[in-house]
């Protein structure tokens, strides 16, 4: 189902004069991959938090299909949206198989804990993403790239139609960025909707994604990356810090698009 955001406004401090999200309206189509671009502080993370219900908009509405998001309870919402935060609070001493099983929470009653059948599902998903060798390790024992894959695996185990990721590649080296982006590309083939924020416009081009360009809490532009990611367009947000690689006096290294 589509997500409709209508005239969203939000600020963290009630007394503040400026809105972090300012009269934001947008429709996100089912089964699309969407990349949120914009400067630090442009409201990307806040918008993602509004979508997941972690924050409530002071004005405007978010609709999932024909339902208002505020009317959907926490448990039911977790069956629609899964969220991979930029800085997950998960501590290093948690066993990875235990962490992945947390993705099953919304299928269990309050008094239940995951059973053997749930751990089989965890293992199957881990096999799909080639992380079975990590299952018996603790979060603190794996690399940053592996950790990001584990967080995405947990979101996939949650098995929601919409996956929201906040800067999933921000702390990764170029190889692992490629691994994560390729994984997202694979997920999109399953008909899931993906929304993620990034600081790299090339990611949107790499994924042939829909771009949502934000500036000071407002929607600056939206459309297919191939049309929208143009120097003159991005300069409106990023200023003169941006240029085409062919205008550089050196050859830029980038992702290989398979």
């Amino acid at each position, binding site marked *: 189902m589509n997500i409709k955001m209508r005239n969203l406004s939000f600020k963290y401090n009630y007394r503040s004069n400026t809105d972090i999200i300012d009269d934001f309206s947008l429709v996100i189509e089912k089964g699309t991959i969407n990349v949120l671009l914009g400067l630090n502080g442009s409201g990307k993370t806040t918008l993602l938090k509004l979508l997941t219900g972690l924050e409530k908009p002071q004005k405007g509405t978010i609709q999932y299909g024909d339902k208002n998001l505020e009317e959907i309870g926490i448990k039911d919402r*977790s*069956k629609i949206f*899964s969220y991979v935060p930029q800085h997950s609070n998960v501590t290093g*001493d*948690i066993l990875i198989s235990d962490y992945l099983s947390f993705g099953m929470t919304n299928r269990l009653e309050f*008094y239940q804990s995951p059973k053997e059948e749930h751990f089989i599902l965890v293992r199957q998903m881990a096999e799909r993403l080639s992380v079975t060798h990590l299952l018996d390790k603790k979060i603190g024992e794996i690399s940053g790239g592996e950790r990001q894959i584990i967080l995405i695996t947990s979101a996939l185990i949650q098995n929601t139609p919409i996956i929201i990721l906040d800067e999933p590649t921000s702390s990764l080296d170029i190889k692992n960025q490629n691994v994560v982006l390729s994984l997202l590309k694979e997920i999109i083939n399953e008909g899931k909707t993906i929304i993620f924020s990034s600081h790299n416009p090339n990611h949107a081009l790499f994924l042939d994604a829909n771009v949502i360009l934000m500036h000071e809490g407002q929607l600056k532009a939206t459309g297919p990356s191939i049309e929208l990611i143009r120097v003159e367009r991005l300069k409106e947000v990023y200023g003169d810090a941006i240029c085409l690689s062919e205008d550089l006096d050196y050859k830029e290294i980038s992702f290989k698009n398979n």
Partner: protein
Amino acid sequence: MKTKSAIYLPISITVVIIIFAFALMIGRYPITISDFFNSIFTNNNNYNVQRSIIVTLRWPRTLMALLVGMGLSVSGLLYQETFRNKLVSPDLLGVSAGASVGASIAIVLGLGSVIISMFSFVLGLITVFITVVIAKLFKDGSSTILLLSGVIVSGFMSSVLAFIKYFADPETTLASITYWEMGTFQRALMNEVYILITVIGVCVLVLLSISWRINLVALGREDAQTKGINYNFYRLLIIVISTLLTAISVCFCGKVSWVGLVIPHIVRLLVGRNTKKTIPLCLTFGGGFMIICDIISRTFTDSELPISAVTGLIGTVVFISILFSKRRELNEH
């Protein structure tokens, strides 16, 4: 790893039962195993003295030690997980400080032991309530504000206690207040034990039913809520249960330090960070540890040692030896 951690629970339950039985036999009046069985399982009048020592003295205080150890350990674990801080002990939000003020007011007023317990319990709860209300005033749902508020209110209660002590009669009431603050199971009564069993039993049943979910609360609001947990509800529920457990534990036996801090650490070092495993083990380890401390406090000297002095000494030795044996895993903790 999984099989290893599954073994700890049955082993620790067996050990607690054995320690409990020994606690009934050991003391300034030692009872041999055959005398113990004769006095408990027969009606032989030759064992009336032993029977009376076991039933009226050692049985209630050992039961109380077991229950208080369980309550304080599990409450410490819950606080450490919920506030994501391993240096936190159950009196974090001011429950012990409030309970001390309550008890000392009752002592100064010359009231009986039942009233002392009631004052201590009620003021412990009121103090935590004040902490939560102050945190709410900031309109900030973060745990940091709640912790800060707890520190402020605890500090205030400590000052109130200092005033009460300053004006208390050094010969009688001041000594009683100081003694209360160090804890003892000497005056344990079966009526108090029944109340403890009821409150701790209900709290533990609720906790065991949600034990797995506490893992998610420990991840913080973002992770918990997006995985389908009503974080605010569960956090409040856990705080209420922990506060109740601490308040009911300290109101009958006085302040007992260390247990709530040390036992959760020991348990986590043994089985890792999963509340489904750590909560049951905190109950057995905490209960067993407290019975051992009680045996030591009443056996080796003519007058009883305060329980907090013993828990501190034994706790340090046990903690350091476990830290030492598990030093390789420490980096992850």
